[in-house]
């Protein structure tokens, strides 16, 4: 399946020790809230799955998903990084922000995005494997010091 789950990368500042999340906000601008994403469903018997996608917000790589402010005054914008239709945002982290830090790769996920069928393959190929990511982090740290 082509579903993508957006989660915080392990190197994200919010996942470093000492940070406490104060607030998570899915309101991106005056007119756009990720919470108001309408994905209407139809019974599985009718083949109108495409229909439900038309209401869903389309995201580009730089589309903001949410803004997170930590108790030390910092604010972070989390971007989609994936082109596709927004299926759902994780409302569990609104009620329980700690979830985002405790289980960032599972229950603390941020959003679910479904890329377009034609773009699915190229998108997957553009992502880094776990190994490649660790190499990037390694380089980053060595150049910083």
């Amino acid at each position, binding site marked *: *399946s*082509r*579903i993508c*789950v957006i989660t915080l990368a392990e190197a994200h500042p919010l996942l470093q020790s000492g940070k406490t999340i104060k607030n998570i906000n899915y309101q991106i601008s005056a007119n756009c809230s990720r919470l108001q994403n309408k*994905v*209407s*469903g*139809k019974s*599985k018997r009718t083949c109108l*799955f495409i229909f*439900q996608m038309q209401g869903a917000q389309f995201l580009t790589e730089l589309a903001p998903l949410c803004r997170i402010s930590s108790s030390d005054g910092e604010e972070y914008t989390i971007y989609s990084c994936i082109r596709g239709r927004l*299926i*759902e945002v*994780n409302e*569990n982290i609104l009620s329980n922000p700690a*979830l985002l830090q405790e*289980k960032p790769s*599972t*229950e603390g*996920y941020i959003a*679910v995005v*479904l890329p377009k069928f034609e773009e699915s393959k190229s998108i997957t190929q553009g992502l880094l494997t776990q190994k490649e990511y660790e190499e990037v982090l390694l380089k980053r740290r060595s150049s910083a010091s």
Partner: protein
Amino acid sequence: MSSLTEKDRPIVQLLLSTGTCPRCILRFCRVGSQMLYRHPHEDLMKDLQEFLKSSQEKEDTVCLDVADPPCKRIRLEHGEEGADELNYNGAIPQLPSAGDGNSATESPALKVCNVCLGILQEFCEADFVKKVCQKVNSADYQFTSFVFSVSLPPQLSVRERAAWLGVKQQMRNLGLPLAKDDIIQLKEAYKWIIHPQLSEELGVPADGKSLFEVSVVFAHPETDEECHFLATACPDCFKPAKNKQSVFTRMAVIKALEKIKEVDFLKHFPCPPSSPKNLCDALEIQCNNGAIFVAGRYNKYSRNLPQTPWIIDGERKLESSVEELISEHLMAEFKADSFNFSSSGREDVDVRTLGNGRPFAIELVNPRRIHFTAEEMRKLQQAINDSSDKIQVRDLQLVTRSAIGRMKEGEEEKTKTYSALIWTDKAIQREDIAFLDDIKELKLDQKTPLRVLHRRPLAVRCRLIHTMKSEYIDEHHFRLHLKTQAGTYIKEFVHGDFGRTKPNIGSLLNRTADILELDVESVDVDWPPTLAD
């Protein structure tokens, strides 16, 4: 002719002289005796001419009209009337005399009828019947009755209308009253004539409800354009055609004929209709058997077999499927064109189906063979079971279409039981999982699992886990038996699906859990009926 009366005389006279065949003339005179239409063409012609010649002073020219009203049922009625009601004298066909100026000088039997275009002429003859039966026999179908369906070119309706208007006009000119215009339908008369002949040749009766259909499509390209004027007269009757098919369908033409005024009709169409040069063509003679339904239950013993073929971008991802393994044999035995497989729910590729198995039904489309004894079905079941160890079938039987409903109701309403092999990250002891056995009617909220979100709408479903029974294995493994409501996603109940199924085993045990193996232990539907082996 006994069925015709004095008032029919002008009609017969007019139609005979303008190129209409005897059987169509009988139709226009509303003669309802099926037997009469079956008489040879030449005899009918002779009779009509006799009728016209007979003197008008005869007192008893009004003979008994045959009692039976025009019969719309296709079913053959034997002995509906005796053969001796007719004043029929001798079998020698005579050429019409030119004396009373009734008919054309050439033999009318050779002229193609200007109304039926030969349908009630050539296409009632033994030669055509033989041709149809040859096609049927060579197609090698099993059948016990037949329904004969005929597709007629739409211009026949137009010509019929024109001929009738001519008759009405003539009656007006003669100052005579005209009876109601309930002409015998051409298709009906055709079936009266051809059904007994087909029935005789094929050795089975005609039956409107038969599943075996013999169909013929007639066309008359020479006169195809005769309908076109209707498009200008009644444009809203003709919708744009799909797939290059003609806009002038039979239904559309009939609708337009109902709408158009007599006056307008006569402006655009000759009355009486002209005599065509050629007969109709019988374009296609096709046979089709109604679908047959085979039901049963299947077990799946492989963890590497999809239920239906798994093909992405034209490439098969996994070899074979439950559906193919079962239907392959059925297709060969029943000699069908294609099949439709359906079942009471499904399981994943890596899930086994144990116990009594899962109910399924296969629709076999256009089967050549339809009769199978219980013994033959058992043999077929054995053949399927011998051919593969990945699946097994039981209770294989023929069912009706309506029975499928019971299977589908099982999919949504009935319970299923499962056995899951579960792993936990943190260690567990027996006491840690014992409480699961006591939980009854556990309510779950399951969002559509991520793994199916690309083809299912996002929704939250409430499902019940009725009972659970745990079996401790070691510190990181245990087996869980569950009985659940239909439509519950078991894997997601175990691993939680990113917290989108709540509660889940992980949340209940306060650990991270994952599912290693899943088996369906039973599908609690009591259909199809269990067969004694």
